[in-house]
């Protein structure tokens, strides 16, 4: 996937665990884990909205595009 999710970095900055975030935004840990490990094929605007609200960040803080992985795809 050319789009990489930087959720682990943001969680580290905010000193939050995946479990705590999952409880706050009402998404299962399994789904957040899929997102964190870059296995997700798509992300809903509602999920992105909840993440940005709870982590007090912008979508660009959570997502980045990498050329190397895009070439592989």
């Amino acid at each position: 996937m050319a789009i990489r999710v930087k959720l682990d970095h943001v969680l580290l900055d905010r000193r939050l665990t995946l479990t705590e975030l999952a409880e706050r935004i009402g998404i299962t840990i399994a789904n957040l884990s899929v997102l964190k490990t870059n296995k997700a094929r798509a992300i809903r605007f509602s999920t992105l909205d909840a993440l940005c609200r709870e982590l007090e960040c912008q979508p660009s803080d959570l997502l980045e595009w990498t050329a190397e992985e895009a070439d592989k795809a």
Partner: protein
Amino acid sequence: MNVTRPRSPASFLIILMNVVRLALAIVLVVTVAIIGLALFADIRGLELIVVPPSFGVSPESHNNWTVTIPVSVAVDSGRIAAPSIGIERAELQDLRGSLRFPIHRGSFFILNSFLLILGIGAGLWLTTQLQRVLRTVRDGKPFARANATRVRWIAWVVIAGEFVRATIVYLENSYAATHFTAEGLRFTARPDFSVVAILEGLIILVIAEVLRVGTRLDEDQSLTV
């Protein structure tokens, strides 16, 4: 997760497929045993029937082994007419039937035995694939890559099977036309190719492609957060 009720169509089809598979497995074992006995022992009172696409072995009282092959005949008949509806001349065409004759243990017998076992084996493989697909339906996971592959293989086997069947019929017809004579009719050789069977194979191929795309969509859906 079992999403089907005990009386759902999938559950019924699984039971049906189990019965068909068991019957085919028994027929295969019995057929191999009978052919083996015929090759290596002097037994009497059995008949080997080879009529593509229906194959079978059935016990019957005869003085020796017989084989039944599909034949195509042309009838040198007299005048055919239907005076009551004003038709003075009609023709008999595309006459097909089966020819049964005594056979000795030899290459023709071995070839027909091989075709018989191949036909039953293909039926067993086909029902096994269908049963595996049905199990995934029962478990609520029909959109699996393995299913798309299975259905695609079934389609190709149906298409290829029809070509093989037509070839076998042609060869059996040729055998009869070469060696047999009859009063009032001539044995001919025609392949008996079924366009309907090919169309059925193509329909299954389309379903396999739909299943493949559905599998991808299902994966996308399950990985959407």
